């Protein structure tokens, strides 16, 4: 029997709209969340989501079905986001990191993390998350929310596993002081 990923790969090769729509339903929230973590902003994300799915339709035959679908999807989304950063002023932010992903500029608007915080601890974390290096934030969401392996993250971000690991360590190190000195 064919595995799920092989069925997805077949559907994408045939540009089967029914398969694509099921994927949109299944992965939409996670795609939105990934892009918010990557960019540190909410506006413009819906456009990138649209473009991501269109690229999935057009280049879907390059997904081989041998590995999980979500790392491939996030890699597509990341390329779209980086392209948008290069092309559009709204995404062209101050340069800081080595990887072309740059932090969002300071804004009066509440950050997407503050708006999305549903627990007291999340609320405490929101401000530090907003100021975190985007690639550190990205590594954290992929590892701890998407539960991806370091190898999978490495394939998404196009950096060695050791770099991904150090991004995770540094992300945790920046956020940890929020909860240090307390008994949980």
């Amino acid at each position, binding site marked *: 029997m064919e595995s799920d990923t092989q069925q997805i790969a077949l559907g994408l090769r045939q540009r089967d709209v029914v398969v*694509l729509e099921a994927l949109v339903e299944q992965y939409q929230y996670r795609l939105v*969340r990934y892009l918010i973590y990557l960019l540190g902003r909410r506006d413009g994300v*819906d456009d990138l989501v649209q473009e991501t799915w269109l690229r999935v339709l057009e*280049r879907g*035959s390059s997904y081989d079905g041998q590995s999980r679908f979500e790392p491939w999807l996030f890699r597509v989304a990341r390329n779209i986001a980086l392209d948008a950063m290069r092309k559009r002023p709204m995404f062209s932010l101050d340069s800081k990191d080595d990887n072309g992903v740059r932090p969002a500029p300071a804004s009066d608007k509440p950050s997407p993390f503050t708006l999305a915080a549903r627990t007291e601890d999340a609320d405490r974390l929101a401000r530090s998350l907003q100021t975190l290096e985007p690639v550190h934030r990205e590594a954290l969401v992929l590892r701890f929310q998407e539960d991806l392996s370091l190898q999978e993250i490495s394939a998404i971000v196009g950096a060695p*596993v050791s770099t991904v690991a150090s991004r995770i360590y540094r992300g945790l190190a920046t956020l940890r002081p929020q*909860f240090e000195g307390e008994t949980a």
Partner: protein
Amino acid sequence: MNIDHHESFQHMIEESLAGVISAERKQSLREHLDTCAPCQEYLSASNRVIASLGGFSFEVDPTLNARVFVSLRLRGQQVQAAQPSRRRWVLISLAAVVLTLGGSFVDLQFGDLIASAFDIQRAQAQLGLLAFWIVPSLCVLLLFPLLPLLSKAGTRREERTI
């Protein structure tokens, strides 16, 4: 215990959370954690960060999926329209086969008839049929099936960057 000693175990905690720690190091970390309060607190604060990441719920525009579906269907139709169907490739290739065979048949069976009708030599009539019928049909037959392969190679080049 000195600070460096704790640091090395705290690095192991990070490795463990990242999922890159060896079984051996994990065991030694476990033993250390049983007796070390600062490292326990370090682990607990790290775990609380990770748990807090689950405390966000981002709002997704309820119309977003519907908008994506519409643009997918539209783009799907455009892509389909831009690509000649497999059926069309097959039909054209079949037509080329029939034309090539037909030309050869006419050449062999009616060469004399054509030569006398146009008042030329049989060899000239055959040469004419060869140049204006059989060879062009043969070219279509041989080259046409290669076109989809060539266009596929082009797509594949494009797909390397997703």
